[in-house]
C-alpha cells in the first residue's frame, strides 16, 4: 500500500514552505507515496502547492474576527470548511496529516479531531510551528496533535513536556548558501561594492518599501553602496485594496526625486524569482521578521536589519526578531505609528533611522561577519530531514528525532502584552517590584503605545495616555495636551494623568500651565481632579506667575461639588500656593467638609504650607485645631494577617 499524506496550512507563503519541504523529504523516503494539499484556492497555497506538483483540495476557512457580527460569516465558512474536510479525509484516508498553521489548517485539524473521536480515522497529526510563538490555530492544534515540531527552541516552553520537538525551519533548498562573487557577477555588481538587499516578502511590506525609498538618496551618497529592492506584488488575482508594492515605491520615488527611478546602483523588482542570488550578493539584508524570511537570512549567514510587523497576534514577528537580536544576528527597528493621525494611520520607520543603522553596519565589516556567523549558528542544518523523521516516527517506523537544544533566551516582558498588562508592568517597574525596562523592551513598548494612542476606541486611547505617562514617553506630550483639551471625558482625564507622568519639562513651561489651567476648568469632574493632582506633583517646576494663576483656580475648586476634586484641590493648594491669600480662606471653607477624606487632605496642606514658609507654625496650629476631626471611616486591620505575613517572610528568608 502506498503511503498517503495530507498536508494543510497556509494563508501566507511562510506557512506553506515547510509543508512543501516536508513533502519533498517524505517523497524521497517513500517514492510511491501519495500527497494531497488542502487549502484555500486564492491564497499562497493555491499557487505554491500546484507549482510543487501536489494536487490541491479546496476548503473554505476564515481568520477569527474580533467579537461582533463578523462571527457569523466566520462560522459559516469554517462550518463549510469542516464539512468539506470531513469528505476529503473520509475519501482519501490519509496515514498522516501534517499541519503547518494558519487558519487555513483549521478545517482539517477540526475534522480529524472529530473523526478520531468517532474512531473513523486513525491518522496521527504532526504540527509544525514556524514562529517562535505558537500561532492561534497551532495552539489549538497542539492540543490534539501527536507531535509538534518547532523552529525555535524557545517555543518548547509553550508546549506540554514531551509533545514538542525542535527541528528548525526547513529553508527552501533554492535559498541555501550561495557564492557571493558569482552572484555579483550574475547581477553585474562590482565585487567590492556594499550591497543592501531589502524586501518585505513576496507580497511586499509597505513599511519597508517606504523606508527604503526614503533612505535611497542618503544611502546611495556612498559611492560603493548598491541597493537591491524586492518591492512585492499582490498574490494571484489582484483585488481592490491589495497593496501594490512596486507601484507604491515608484510613486514615492517619483515624488522624492524622479532621477532615482533610473539610478544605476538602485535595482528594483516586483517579484524576485532568484532569491538565492540576491541573498548571496548582499552584505546586509533588510526584511520583515516572518520565520521564513529570517531563517533564509540565517541560512545565508547574512547580517540583517529587521523591521517586525507590529501588533500581530502574540507579537510573534517581534518575538522572532528579538530572539535573533539576542543571539547577535540582527538589529531590530520597530515600526512606529503617528498617533496623532488617528485610526487608519500607516505604520512607518523613519528613513533617517534606517540610513543611520544601515550605514553603521555597512561601514563595519568585522561586525557584519560576527553577525553573519551568529545567524548561521541559529539554524539546524537538516530541518527537512528531522521533520521527515517526525513523520516516520508517527507512522511507527522510526525513532523519535531528538535535537537536544534547550531554550536559550528569556522572553521579553513586553511581548504579547495587552494594554492592561502593560500598565501593570510599568506600575511594577515604578514601584520597583519589577526590574526596569531594557532598551529593546522600551522601544517595543513605545511602538505599542503609539498603536493605543492612535486607536479609534476611547478605552484604548485613554489607556494609551496613562501608559505613555507611566513610560515617560515625552515625544507624545503635545498629543496628550491636545487630548486633554479635546476628547471624550475619560480620555481627557487620562491625558491629564499621563501629563503628570511626563512632568512639566515635556512641554514648554507656559504650555504645560495652560494645559493644567484648562484641565482644572474641565466640565468633567475626574478631569478636574487629575488636573489638580498633576498640579500638586509638578509644583516646583512651574513659573511663579503660573503658580499664582493656578492657585486662584484651585481656590475656587475647593468648593467643587465633587469631593474628589475638593480633595485634590486642597492637596494641590498646599503645594502650590506661595501666599496665604487665596489659599487659606479657601481652605477654611472645607474645615467642616462632610467627607473626611477632604479634611484629611487639609491637614497635609497646612503642614505643606508651614514647611514651605507660607504660614507660621502658630497660624498653622490654629487652623489645624479648627478642622473637624470626626470621621466615619477607619482602616480595618486583621492582626492575624500580620502574624501570617511575618511568618511567611521568615520562612522565605530561611528558604533563601
Amino acid at each position, binding site marked *: 500500500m502506498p503511503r498517503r499524506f495530507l498536508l494543510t496550512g497556509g494563508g501566507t507563503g511562510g506557512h506553506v514552505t515547510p509543508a512543501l519541504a516536508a513533502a519533498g523529504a517524505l517523497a524521497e523516503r517513500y517514492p510511491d507515496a501519495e500527497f494531497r494539499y488542502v487549502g484555500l484556492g486564492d491564497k499562497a497555497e493555491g499557487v505554491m502547492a500546484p507549482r510543487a506538483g501536489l494536487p490541491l483540495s479546496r476548503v473554505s476557512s476564515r481568520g477569527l474576527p474580533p467579537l461582533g457580527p463578523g462571527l457569523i460569516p466566520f462560522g459559516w465558512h469554517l462550518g463549510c470548511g469542516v464539512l468539506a474536510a470531513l469528505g476529503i479525509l473520509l475519501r482519501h484516508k490519509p496515514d498522516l496529516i501534517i499541519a503547518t498553521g494558519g487558519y487555513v489548517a483549521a478545517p482539517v485539524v477540526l475534522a480529524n479531531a472529530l473523526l478520531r473521536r468517532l474512531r473513523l480515522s486513525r491518522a496521527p497529526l504532526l504540527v509544525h510551528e514556524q514562529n517562535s510563538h505558537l500561532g492561534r490555530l497551532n495552539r489549538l492544534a497542539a492540543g490534539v496533535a501527536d507531535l509538534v515540531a518547532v523552529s525555535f527552541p524557545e517555543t518548547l516552553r509553550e508546549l506540554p513536556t514531551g509533545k514538542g520537538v525542535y527541528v528548525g525551519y526547513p529553508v527552501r533548498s533554492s535559498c541555501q548558501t550561495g557564492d557571493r562573487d558569482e552572484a555579483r557577477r550574475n547581477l553585474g555588481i562590482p565585487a567590492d561594492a556594499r550591497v543592501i538587499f531589502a524586501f518585505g516578502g513576496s507580497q511586499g511590506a509597505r513599511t519597508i518599501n517606504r523606508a527604503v525609498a526614503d533612505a535611497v538618496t542618503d544611502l546611495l551618497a556612498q559611492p560603493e553602496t548598491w541597493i537591491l529592492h524586492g518591492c512585492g506584488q499582490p498574490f494571484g488575482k489582484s483585488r481592490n485594496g491589495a497593496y501594490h508594492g512596486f507601484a507604491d515605491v515608484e510613486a514615492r520615488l517619483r515624488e522624492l526625486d524622479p532621477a532615482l527611478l533610473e539610478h544605476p546602483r538602485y535595482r528594483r523588482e516586483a517579484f524576485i524569482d532568484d532569491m538565492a542570488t540576491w541573498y548571496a550578493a548582499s552584505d546586509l539584508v533588510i526584511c520583515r521578521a516572518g520565520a521564513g524570511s529570517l531563517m533564509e537570512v540565517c541560512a545565508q549567514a547574512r547580517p540583517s536589519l529587521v523591521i517586525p510587523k507590529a501588533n500581530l497576534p502574540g507579537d510573534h514577528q517581534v518575538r522572532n526578531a528579538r530572539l535573533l537580536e539576542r543571539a547577535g544576528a540582527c538589529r531590530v527597528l520597530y515600526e512606529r505609528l503617528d498617533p496623532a493621525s488617528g485610526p487608519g494611520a500607516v505604520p512607518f520607520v523613519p528613513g533617517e533611522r534606517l540610513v543611520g543603522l544601515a550605514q553603521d553596519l555597512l561601514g563595519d565589516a568585522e561586525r557584519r561577519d560576527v553577525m553573519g556567523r551568529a545567524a548561521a549558528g541559529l539554524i539546524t542544518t537538516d530541518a527537512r530531514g528531522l521533520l521527515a523523521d517526525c513523520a516516520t516516527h508517527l507512522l511507527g517506523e522510526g525513532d523519535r528525532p531528538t535535537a537536544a537544544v534547550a531554550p536559550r533566551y528569556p522572553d521579553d516582558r513586553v511581548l504579547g502584552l495587552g494594554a492592561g498588562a502593560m500598565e501593570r508592568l510599568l506600575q511594577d517597574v515604578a514601584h520597583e517590584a519589577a526590574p526596569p525596562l531594557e532598551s529593546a523592551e522600551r522601544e517595543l513598548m513605545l511602538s505599542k503605545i503609539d498603536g493605543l494612542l492612535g486607536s479609534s476606541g476611547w478605552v484604548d486611547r485613554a489607556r494609551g495616555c496613562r501608559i505613555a505617562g507611566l513610560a515617560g514617553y515625552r515625544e507624545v506630550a503635545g498629543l496628550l495636551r491636545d487630548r486633554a483639551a479635546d476628547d471624550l471625558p475619560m480620555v481627557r482625564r487620562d491625558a491629564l494623568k499621563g501629563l503628570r507622568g511626563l512632568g512639566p519639562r515635556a512641554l514648554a513651561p507656559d504650555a504645560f500651565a495652560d494645559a493644567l489651567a484648562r484641565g482644572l476648568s474641565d466640565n468633567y469632574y475626574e478631569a478636574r481632579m487629575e488636573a489638580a493632582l498633576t498640579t500638586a506633583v509638578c509644583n516646583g517646576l512651574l513659573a511663579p506667575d503660573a503658580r499664582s494663576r493656578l492657585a486662584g483656580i484651585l481656590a475656587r475648586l475647593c468648593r467643587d461639588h465633587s469631593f474628589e476634586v475638593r480633595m485634590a484641590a486642597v492637596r494641590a493648594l498646599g503645594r502650590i500656593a506661595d501666599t496665604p491669600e487665596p489659599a487659606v480662606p479657601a481652605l477654611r471653607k472645607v474645615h467642616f467638609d462632610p467627607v473626611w*477624606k477632604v479634611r484629611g487632605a487639609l491637614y497635609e496642606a497646612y503642614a505643606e504650607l508651614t514647611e514651605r514658609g507660607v504660614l507660621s507654625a502658630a497660624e498653622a496650629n490654629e487652623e489645624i485645631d479648627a478642622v473637624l476631626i470626626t470621621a466615619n471611616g477607619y482602616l480595618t486591620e486583621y492582626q492575624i494577617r500580620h502574624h501570617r505575613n511575618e511568618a511567611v517572610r521568615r520562612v522565605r528568608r530561611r528558604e533563601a
Partner: protein
Amino acid sequence: MLYLLLRALEDMGGPAVFRYVTTRSALAFIFGFICVIAVGRPLINWLYRRGIRSFERSYGDINTTAKTGTPIMGGLLMALGGLGSALLWCDLTNPFVWVLFAAAIYFAGFGLLDDWLKIRHRDPDRGLSRTAKLVSQMIFGLGIGLYLAWPEISPFPGSVGTEIQIPFFKGAVIDLRYGILAWSAFYIAYHVNAVNITDGMDGLATVPAILVFSVVAVFAYIAGNVQLSGHYLYAFIPRASEITVFCAAVIGAGLGFLWYVCHPASVFLGDTGSLFIGGVLGTAALMIRQELVCLLAGMIFLVELLSTFVQEQVGFRLLKRRLLPRAPLHHAFQHRGMAESKIVVRFWIISLICTATAVMTIKFR
C-alpha cells in the same frame, strides 16, 4: 417529612398543633437557625481546606487584600439549613413547595457551578459567562411564567396567576395574560442579579433578603387564608400559606448565616448564596402574586442594580464618563471613605424602613 409523619400520628390521636402554619413556621424558623449554627463551623473549615477561598481583587482604589482568603460558597450553608428545615416542616404534597424547592436547587446549583469554575480557573472573572447566567435565569423565569399562565397546571384560581397587584390601591390589578411570561423571566433575572450585585460587603445582602422574605411570609399567610384575604381584600390563593413555612425556614437559616457573616465575616455568600437567595426570593414573590410589594421591600436591591446599570450602560457606554463616583452604590460610599460596618448598618436601616412601608400597604390602601 415530619409534617406528614405528625399528620399521620394526629390521625392516631396525636396532638393537632402541627397542623397549623403558624406553629410549623415557628418551628421551621428555629430549626433552620439551629441547623446553620450547628453545621456552620465544620462546613466553613471544610470549604477553607478545599481551597474554596476568595481571591484578591482590585476595584481601583478599593482594596480587598484584608479579605482575601475568606471561604466563599457560604450560600451552601444557608441553602442546606433552609432546605433541610423546609424539608422537615413543609407539607411536601403542596405544589408551591415543589416550585420553591425547584428554584432553590436550580439557582444554588448554578451558583455552585459558577463558584467552582472561578476556583478552578483561579480567577474571579472566569466563572460562568454573563450570557450563560442570564440565559439560565431567563429560562427558569419563563418556566415560572408558564406555571402562572397555563390554566391546566396553574394552581391559581381564575386569572389571579397573570394579574399584577398594585400596592396602595384597593383591588387595582393589571392582567398581563401571556405577558406574564416575559414579566416573570425579567423579574427572576432582576432579583438574582440585584442580590448578586448587592452581595459585596459583610451581611449587606443577607439582612435585606431576610426582611423581604419576612414580607413574603406575611403576604403568603394572608393570601392562603380565606378569612384574612377576604378581610384585607387580596386574591385568595388556596394552599399558598405553605410558602410561609418555607420562608420561615429560609429566614431562620439566613439569621444563622448572619451569625457567621456579620462584619468581619468568616465566610462569604459567594454566587452560590446570592443566586440561591435571589432565585428563591423572585420565585416566592411571583407565587404569592405580590411582585411590586416585594420590589418595594427590597428597594436596596433595586437601587444597587440601578446604580450599576446607570454607571455602566448610560455612563461608560453612552456618555463615556462616570455618572456616579463608583458603582454599585455601596462602593460609592466606600470610595468616600465610609467604613464598611457603617455602610452595612445604614443599608439595613433603609431596608427596614422599606420593609415597614411594604407591610403597611396591607392596610394603607
